[in-house]
């Protein structure tokens, strides 16, 4: 009897060790490139050429330095680009949330024959590949004069974020009991009032989910803003990073510093909201 228990506990321990090793490897793989980048951003390019894997300051005559950051920050004009990114993200996410709840309430609780077609077209949008609208959007922006304007960036961003938001909002509002709305109707409340005073306050948790899903998407978006803007002062941080760091194929020091600057905002956002983000991703993904 004791023997059986012994073998069982040893196998459990071995299993645990194996599992920890697997997870350790994945953790290492996930973190290593980022740590490598961070470490090397404190080396000058000369030092990096001599010491590509180690910590800075290991080679005589060199020590860790912030000069890369200073150079990159000044030459890349990242301050303005970060403000642009914040502007694009905040405005489009606010509109995505507002329009999503408006559509979601109408689709879930108001009677109309149009719902089937309209809601259906939003759910098809969930599967659409964005690349396919790249060229038509560019041409349309060109014809309407929206090319290279802030509005011309915001409108596509809102439209692209809507399918996910509308889908989540509709499913969420559907689960709110209709009796609540009916009793408010009997008391004489108009639909707009019901929407503003009953539905919206109940949707705060979902607003957080939609916000988090759209913030990462909008902040990191690169392809569209890259073709829709040409004036440097209208571009977002990722485009600026690509323009600055992508061109520096041999000046690694500045390139790495620029990449860290590009990485930090989302890293900070993730560290603060990682619980909400990991929950939101699962909620957003289950949509098949």
């Amino acid at each position: 009897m004791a023997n059986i228990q012994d073998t069982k506990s040893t196998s459990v321990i071995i299993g645990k060790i194996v599992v920890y090793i697997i997870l350790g490897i994945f953790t290492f793989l996930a973190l290593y490139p980022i740590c490598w980048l961070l470490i090397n951003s404190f080396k000058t390019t000369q030092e990096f050429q001599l010491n590509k894997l180690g910590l800075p300051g290991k080679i005589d005559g060199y020590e860790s330095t912030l000069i890369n950051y200073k150079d990159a920050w000044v030459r890349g004009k990242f301050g303005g680009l970060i403000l642009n990114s914040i502007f694009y993200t905040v405005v489009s996410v606010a509109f995505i949330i507002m329009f999503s709840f408006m559509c979601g309430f109408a689709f879930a609780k108001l009677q109309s024959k149009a719902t089937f077609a309209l809601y259906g077209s939003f759910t098809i949008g969930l599967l659409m590949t964005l690349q396919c609208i790249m060229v038509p959007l560019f041409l349309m922006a060109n014809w309407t004069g929206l090319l290279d304007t802030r509005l011309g960036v915001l409108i596509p961003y809102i439209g692209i974020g809507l399918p996910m938001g509308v889908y989540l909002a509709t499913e969420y509002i559907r689960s709110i009991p209709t009796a609540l709305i009916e009793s408010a109707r009997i008391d004489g409340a108009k639909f707009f009032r019901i929407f503003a005073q009953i539905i919206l306050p109940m949707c705060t948790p979902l607003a957080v989910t939609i916000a988090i899903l759209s913030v990462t998407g909008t902040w990191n978006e690169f392809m569209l803003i890259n073709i829709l803007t040409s004036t440097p002062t209208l571009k977002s941080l990722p485009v600026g990073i690509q323009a600055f760091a992508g061109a520096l194929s041999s000046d690694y020091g500045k390139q790495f510093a620029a990449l860290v600057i590009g990485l930090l905002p989302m890293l900070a956002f993730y560290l603060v909201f990682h619980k909400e983000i990991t929950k939101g991703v699962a909620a957003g993904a289950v949509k098949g």
Partner: protein
Amino acid sequence: MSDKEKAQRAGVNGEITLGDVKNEKKIRRKELTSKGEEKLAYWTLVLPGFLIYFAVMAFPTLFSFILSISNYYRGGQLFGPKAVDFKLVGFGSYAKVFQDEYFYVALKNNFKIVLISVFGQIPLGFILAYILNRGLVKFTGFFQTVIYLPCVISTVVIGILFKSFFSPTGAWPEVIRIFNPAYQPTVNANPMASVLLVILWMYTGTYLLIFIANLQKIDSSIIEAAKIDGASEFQALRYIILPALSGVIVTSAILAISGSLKSFDLIYVMTGGGPANRTTVLSIFMYDKAFKGAPNYALANAISTIMVIISFLLIGLTKLAEKKFGGKE
């Protein structure tokens, strides 16, 4: 009783029938306004969002198809005095796409990405989620957070980072030298392999999160009961957990397929489709036709229409496979 009140009473009494009719009308009007109000509310709530969605996503997708069968090669105004002579000329652009050798290179690379997503990211994500969910380890939250981390970082940053990391003057040759000191960096023999590796690195965390969320929904008492009845860990996995997750696996596969066709940013930044177009994918191929050198918008839109068709075909196939092999839900 004052005179005023008397007068009022008389008035009310005198118009009793007329008042009834008015009341009825009022009720009817109220019903009507209620219906009308609902209609008004519906359209005011739906239209702003739908119009933007339609203008940005639905219309361009349809419009892309129209452009693909038109003679709109070089761009220019469609309306107004300087309008170009816009005609539908048929499927010539598609024929041109199919004659282009790089189309097949791009197609092949896209399928490699689909394969690594469906058979790499999903199984890895599942294994990790399973380990974390079975309560075998502590710090579940930490592992989950770290493995998902690459997904929140800008693709641009990741692309440039790995471009430098894998470059012959970057760190990769040094890493190899730890294991093989005689290694000499050469021109990358298989540039697509590093792209695939990065794609695997970036997105496995997404599937980890999806599987964890759904594993948590499975009633653990069922698994415990099976264990008491003598089922092994593997049997529990094979006969309880996997069938319960079949729907999620299909959803993940659909996500992976539509995501695979989206792989523009990373490749654009990391390799630009090069060297010699060997890492090109359909979206890069299309971008080159529209924005590099002399544009050919009809051709680019033909490629994008082909992408839409491929994406829906693959998703349809996945759904079919689900019906045939899974469908026990």
